[in-house]
């Protein structure tokens, strides 16, 4: 399941990254999205997703979200 399938308030653990382009992967990794990290979906607005990991928040759009494989905790 990818992260965009989650609803606001749901928690997740990142399992991996599917078919992401190199640049996208590098960016996500550098910004702190790694396999095994836990987080929570805070809000959704159309194509944009607001997620929180540890003490930081990221906005990701649907295209990026479709590459992030997660499990429901």
């Amino acid at each position, binding site marked *: 399941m990818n992260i965009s399938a989650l609803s606001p308030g749901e928690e997740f653990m990142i399992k991996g990254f599917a078919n992401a382009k190199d640049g996208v992967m590098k960016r996500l990794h550098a*910004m702190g999205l790694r396999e095994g990290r836990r987080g929570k979906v805070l*809000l959704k*607005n159309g194509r*944009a997703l607001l997620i929180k990991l540890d003490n930081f928040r*990221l*906005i*990701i*759009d649907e*295209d990026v979200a479709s590459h992030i494989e997660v499990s429901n905790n």
Partner: protein
Amino acid sequence: MSKKKIKVAFAGNPNVGKTTLLNAIAGTSLKVGNWPGVTVEKREAIVEVGDYILHFVDLPGIYTLDPLSEDEKIAVKFLEEEKPDVIVNVIETPSIERALLLTTELLEFRIPTVIALNMWDEAQKVGVEVDIKKLSELLGVEVVTTVGKSGKGVKELVEAVIRAFSEGKTPKEVRYSAEVEDLLKELSQKNPTATKHDLIKELLREKPDLYEKVRDDRFAFAHGLAKEVVRLRGDQGRDLTDALDKIVLHPLFGIPIFIGIIYITFKLAFDFSSPFVDWLDGFINDFLSPLSLEVLKALSFPEWFVRFFSEALVGGVGFVITFVPLIGSLYFLITFLEMSGYIPRVAFLMDRFMHKIGLHGKSVIPLILGFGCNVPAIVATRTIENPRDKLLVIAMIPFMSCPARLVVFSFFVSIFFRENPALVITAMYVIGIFIAVFTALILRKVLVKEGPLHFVMELPPYRFPSMKTVFTITWAHVKDFLYRAGTLIFGASIVVWLLLNLPPGVKNPSESIAGKIGKALVHVFEPVGIDNWKATTSLIPAFLAREIAISSMGTIYMSAEGITEEVEEFNFKRALFNQGVNLLNATEDAFSSLLSLGIVSLEVEEEQEEDLKSLIAKDFNPASALSFMIFILIYTSCLGTFAVMSREIGLKGAIAFLGYSFAVAWITALISYNLLSRLTG
């Protein structure tokens, strides 16, 4: 004994408070500029402490030294080529785990390093504890805790920088997996002076398939380090940011709140600055200008020089300087909103709409700024990473109608559209937005076909900004603006003045070079209803700034019709007294305007001489007046915008855009002229 220079680089993730910290150290010596060749903002400061001169350079906020964006490329290039003496790695302590990746990469340079654990107070609140002593021992670096906003720990930070430099304390070597280390060792035998950073770069050039291995090693080191020194307490308090975001980013209320905030921002900027703009205008034209003319005459300067002084210097540069209060207020409010964490949130709110025209939510920020002034708006596109998106946004901004255009609209509306002033002015703003969206769609089809790139951005928590920092940044921008007014705009004013006054001895503007160009231009403008040389000639100096169209129309009409302005006798004491009284009134107006709900300074006022209005009423009709307004709206006749555009997209691009905006302006004016002529018969 001469003082020792220390070059200090500030490096850290975005939004970790580097600028606030630097500001706490440097105060008003903070300088805002650009990195050479690119449009990323460069902030630097020089501070003397004891026997040392510290030159601080604030590197762009980055997540990694593995260069992806323009920002990261700049930071890497600086570290590789300029070789700072000391690196200050600023860490947002609440997110220290993530920040340690960049720390690991910085340590590879083996440059004396000081780690500033910033926002130490926030970390305590959210339950993040760091073992400072252990961190310092493990890495062989100085570690200090700081709170940039209150200036806590700043003195200790400066002391640590000097200590790190004078003791030449290189950090301990970062060790990766045996496989990587063995390969690096081989390479280092060939090049014994190379840093670990250089060796890894070399290794990846030879063996690109090792990229993931190196990346994982770096992560593993950072992760291991975090495990050693970071401890999370379970008692994290309720987060104010999450609670506020539920309201501010609400699917229903978010947009109305956004519109409200933008409205308040513009109201504050316009209404607070407008009385000061008027005062400055009066101060320059009724005090400084006559005073200096008296002095120049008393010193028997030639007449042409006196005219040059009053027309090119006071009329050109002086006119632009009167906008300082507006620009300062706008910068102040925008910096405040940016540092408070609200502006990045607009990207989240507007993403859905912006996606329809092929852009991300992030791109809406510079567009909004464009309604205030196109110049800083174009500068603000530097936050857009993707060159394609940036080009699209830069091409949209000049169609966002700015207050300078409003001056021209108000003037014509008060002559030809007295019955519906608000409707006509609103229509101008809407036409501008429509043309901007049209331009983006065309550009997307013709030039840049691929869809927008991935969109990931960090939302910082809400913070009340340090007012000292907001003021310092505003002042740094105002200084930059004044510098440009004194160089670029002054140069252009001279050229326009020469065009209006050559060949030598020309008395009537119709015989000057500008008048001749104006007459030739009549052929171009005839189809859109602007068929007299006085109007077309006034468009030439209007290229400096649109509102000059009105003042130059005044000069051209008056001198062509042989009307002379009455010159009052100048009395220094009385004039000085009047200026003092006017300044007091302006201050009172600025504050009292804040109490009303509407935007007072945008209401149409009739200030111009009735003489000029009746002359213009003879030469125009409602259809041709609308043509003129549309022309002023769409054609990018603003030297400031043109200059900043050519810096961002190159001179050729800026000239091409000028041509495009002229063509669109001409076609739109043609359509509106024919429509309105038919309607009014």
